[in-house]
């Protein structure tokens, strides 16, 4: 296989790491391709060698066999420290230098590369904006920052010299779930802007599904069990190990990858506010439910149950109850499912950003949505 494909950022070629005295290699002849501009997640149980593999890319761990090709070149041709100055590196505890200000931390690699002071300063400001860091933090020392802020600084620092590749080793494991979710969203947004090649090690399969373009699942000893898009893997796990690792809620996990925009919506039992109660009752029996949605000027006011219709002239005279599960474009089917099972009406309602009614979804619609994107394994 040629290593010269322009779209391949990193290629791991029979990569092996055998520690002296170890019974088996920590990583055994791993072949893996990481395309340019993609975020590839390395996931697996402890001992699968995912961190070791990551560290062999920037040679913090030297391989005992095989080659790491970076943009077509053997990673060993450069002195290790020069190689690393061209690769961003983010670790779990951030590892910020306590004795330097935040700004100096961020500017570390540019300084190592010999950039001029004003260029570094400008770049630091740029990154502070990108990473949503309050500029007043720049002159402070890391000890004054919260965990989440420190992680952001860590990412800013990694991106400072604008490396094409970013290596991340469990970057969000040490922060609490709320902060973690925010940081993950920020990473996605940064990636949309910058299109870096990112290799992310995590033990959290949900994080991998959320963030990665491609997931590589490793088994103990660095054995690659499967690599593919999250959607592919959830739909068709290659073997029992992968299926177990993905969890027994694969179907629901797949729902988190599909949005309400991707599935056909049904009109559902909806009447205009000006309609009569009799019309409403007819619609109810047509659809086999005991409620109707009420619409006025294209917007949904809510729903009324059969028991609420008491001889008012129009449906609009009855006080409508709001739909519990209301969703905007871009929200996931998983969220829609959660809404459906917790609501009285058992539907998720989809509206536009300006609240105009688009349609609704039932549980059956969701199931249709999943199977429509490809048959899953039983």
């Amino acid at each position, binding site marked *: 296989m040629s290593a010269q494909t322009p779209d391949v950022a990193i290629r791991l070629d029979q990569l092996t790491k055998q520690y002296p005295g170890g019974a088996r290699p920590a990583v055994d002849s791993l072949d893996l391709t990481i395309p340019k501009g993609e975020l590839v997640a390395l996931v697996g149980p402890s001992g699968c060698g995912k961190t070791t593999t990551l560290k062999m890319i920037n040679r913090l761990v030297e391989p005992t066999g095989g080659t790491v090709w970076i943009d077509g070149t053997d990673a060993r041709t450069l002195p290790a420290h020069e190689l690393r100055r061209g690769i961003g*590196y983010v670790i779990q505890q951030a590892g*910020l230098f306590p004795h330097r200000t935040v700004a100096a931390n961020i500017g570390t690699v540019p300084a190592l590369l010999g950039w001029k002071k004003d260029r570094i300063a400008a770049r630091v400001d740029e990154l502070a904006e990108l990473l949503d860091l309050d500029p007043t933090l720049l002159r402070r020392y890391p000890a004054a920052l919260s965990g989440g802020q420190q992680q952001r600084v860590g990412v800013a620092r990694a991106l400072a010299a604008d490396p094409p590749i970013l290596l991340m080793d469990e970057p969000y494991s040490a922060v609490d779930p709320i902060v973690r979710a925010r940081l993950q969203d920020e990473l996605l947004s940064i990636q949309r802007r910058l299109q870096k090649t990112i290799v992310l090690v995590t033990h959290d399969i949900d994080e991998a599904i959320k963030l990665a373009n491609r997931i590589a699942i490793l088994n103990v000893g660095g054995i690659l069990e499967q690599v593919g898009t999250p959607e592919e893997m959830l739909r068709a796990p290659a073997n029992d190990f992968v299926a177990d690792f993905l969890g027994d809620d694969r179907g629901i996990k797949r729902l988190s990858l599909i949005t309400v925009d991707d599935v056909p919506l049904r009109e559902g039992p909806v009447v205009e506010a000006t309609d009569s109660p009799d019309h409403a009752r007819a619609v109810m029996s047509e659809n086999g439910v005991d409620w109707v949605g009420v619409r006025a000027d294209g917007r949904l006011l809510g729903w009324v149950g059969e028991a609420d219709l008491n001889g008012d002239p129009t449906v609009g005279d009855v006080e409508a109850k709001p739909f519990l599960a209301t969703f905007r474009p871009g929200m996931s089917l998983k969220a829609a499912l959660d809404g459906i099972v917790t609501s009285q009406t058992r539907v998720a309602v989809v509206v536009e950003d300006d609240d105009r009614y688009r349609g609704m979804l039932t549980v059956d619609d969701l199931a249709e949505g999943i199977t429509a994107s490809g048959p899953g394994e039983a």
Partner: protein
Amino acid sequence: MLFATEPLVRWKWVGDHLDEIWQDLIEHIQLTAIAVGIGFAISLVLAIVSIRYRWTYGPIGAFCAVLYAIPSLALFALLIPIVGLGVVPAEIALVGYTLLILLRNMVAGFDGVPPEVREAADGMGYEGWRRGLRVDLPLALPAIIAGLRIATVTTVGLVTVAALVGTGGLGALINDGLDRGDFPTPVVVGSVLSIALAIVLDVMFVLIERFATPWRRRQRPDTVINPDEPVGAAAAADVAGGELAGAGAGVASGG
């Protein structure tokens, strides 16, 4: 003995002998500086060896500890038949006494650098020596300075005793006074000055440490003994100082 009836300080005598007193003070400082200076250089080498080859730290440390435990007067005395009287045996012993403190603190300082900071530095492209200089050293500095502080203050006390084997310094002032036995003034002046010198140097090092480590300003190491922070290396050295330097001020200066 006339000591009993004389006033503690005969100020006229002080006035008359200001030059001599000043001379003794200068000598005292010089002797201290030489000992700490040479001790620092040797300890640095020992520390580098101990860090690079961990297995040597035990034996080296043990040797320094034994040296440290020997009462200073005894050590001075034992060196006399070998190198004679005067500055040489004194400095040899004085240097020996600084080793334990400086070595321990240098190694503790280095060990106190958080491993993730080292990993991040390597990962970003710092090559070995540069990382040592720009990352490990600054972070080890609080502990190293604390070590210098303890060593210096301890040495001041020891130099006082060294006068008994023929060096100059404030100890000579004390000693002459004792030997003369007719009035306490030189004894008092010498003692008070040596105490003052030690305190001044102690404070000076505290200020140096504050100045050299601006990133620690938000903490006050004097009131916080937190063993989980690398800062604690210095604060720990303060308390460990109770272990080491308590031994120092006494053993060594006691001698």
